[in-house]
């Protein structure tokens, strides 16, 4: 199954990610976003970050989840290579997500080719039809 597809967008980065479950689609969205900045397939699994985010709805959950990856890159030079154990659970007032992000710290061995600065709600879509499709526009 295709993980994601990068779409044309005038000013910024846009992609769709797919999954049999919402969790899988979210995980593939993380890789799609990473692909706008580095080649995640060439990133090893030496460093791990456990993340936990809460949100009022699925859209906010996706924005906050992807924002974690930008934050870890900006503050810890962390390059995502793989998403493990992504779980989404209902909470008393919304949803929560936890996941283990695996990757490496940026070094001369890696090449960066873009700078994603923020995740937006513009044209953001989460659709359930033959699995899940999520669509995201990021500010570059």
């Amino acid at each position, binding site marked *: 199954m295709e993980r994601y597809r*990068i*779409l*044309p*967008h*005038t*000013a*910024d*980065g846009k992609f769709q990610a797919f999954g049999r479950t919402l969790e899988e689609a979210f995980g593939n969205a993380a890789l799609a976003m990473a692909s706008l*900045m580095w080649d995640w397939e060439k990133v090893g699994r030496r460093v791990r970050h456990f993340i936990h985010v809460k949100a*009022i*709805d699925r*859209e*906010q959950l996706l*924005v*906050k989840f992807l*924002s974690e990856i*930008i*934050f870890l*890159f*900006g*503050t810890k*030079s962390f390059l995502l290579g793989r998403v493990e154990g992504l779980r989404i659970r209902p909470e008393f007032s919304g949803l929560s997500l936890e996941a283990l992000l695996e990757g490496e710290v*940026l070094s001369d061995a890696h090449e*960066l*080719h*873009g*700078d994603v*600065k*923020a*995740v*937006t*709600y*513009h044209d*953001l879509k989460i659709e359930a039809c033959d699995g899940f499709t999520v669509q995201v*526009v990021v*500010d*570059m």
Partner: protein
Amino acid sequence: MELRKIDDNTWEIPKEGEMRVPAVIYSSARLLEDIRRDQTLTQARNVACLPGIVRYSYVMPDAHQGYGFPIGGVAAFGLDEGIISPGGVGYDINCGVRLLKTDYDESEVTAKRKELLAEIFREVPAGVGKGGVTKLSRSVLKEVLVRGAEWAVENGYGRAEDLERTEERGRMAEAEADGISERALERGIPQLGTLGAGNHFLEIQKVLEIYDETAARTFGLHAAGQVLVMIHCGSRGLGHQVATDYIEAMENAFGVAGLPDRELVHAPFMSPEGQRYYRSMCAAVNYAFANRQMIAHWVRDVFARVLGSAKGMDQVYDVCHNVAKVEEHEDGGRSRRLVVHRKGATRSFGPGRPEVPARYRSVGQPVIIPGSMGTASFLLAGTKEAEGLSFGSTAHGAGRVMSRHEALRRFRGEKIRDDMARRGIELKSTSWKGVAEEASEAYKDVDEVVRVSDQVGLGRLVAKVVPIGVMKG
């Protein structure tokens, strides 16, 4: 969508449905073709629906689709009944442009421009994931957030007179660091004093043509061939995090029901959420002022080292093009305070406004409009008419017309470098791919943008400048 032609450069979306005011678009027929191609007009109409909006939802000639508000959008709201929206400011808070003049003529610089550019490239950190040389403590960062360029000057970056030639004197007084999240601080610490990537650049330029002698002289521009330096960057990850944090805070406080676009989330200006965002946004604005102040200082250092002196390297001005500010404007025959959102738009105050530095008050504030990489940029002067036309605002640049994806498919960075070299422009970048993405063909024609601005009266043309050396993040 119905668009009513008012004159050759002015169009109106009449008030309909949920709109509280009409929308006005300043654009030539040619630029309008681009504007109509994306969601700019729908976004301008959405802005016209927001509570407390005054007069019109304005669209500048370089407008293109943004998030929530269009890029090139200007909207003002009453303080008591109106709102503030992070989407009306943009993610890169106080993305802006600083212009330095020199007393050098092109002939004195041409032979050394390679060396100048290489040295600037070494001194000014740039590119994706690139941290600064200044390691800040949390408490010093908070001081930067409250004091902006003032902090930078006090710590040896630049000159005291730079402050009077910076919008807001380089410091928005309403700034508070308390509303800035730990995450924003963490992103801000390593990035102060860095150019960043994307469309941000630093150029060594020369004056090509002067249109208005008096204004040019007042701004420190004397003749064609005079060398200038332009710096275009913003508040880096810190500003983006502030925007992300407050979009979430406003969603959680007010919900998202009824919004035509979630990026339009807003808070009443006087509400605790509105005030917290405003004061935090001001802090991010200050961070960006300090950032450009530091970069300008390093550029002067390089000129002094390579050419023997940085004498005459006075700052012309420093403008924000992503900001919300409380300003005094006419509304229905009386003067009142409004919160003016400029997203991808430059303040363009004319002669006499107290916000304009005393030395420029007779001609209006300098308005700096950067072109795309390797093309011309312009210096304009603010006008009195602009206050009535657009709350004293004009365009901010060229505006993209082609996706990065498409630009990458069509252009190659190395080829662009060679083409520019043939035109006498030296280029240095951290990424050839980044250069391809920023190819000038991916942008609107900035000449047409400033022509419309001048004809409508949003900003008066003063000078055209072209690059001789380009550093891209």
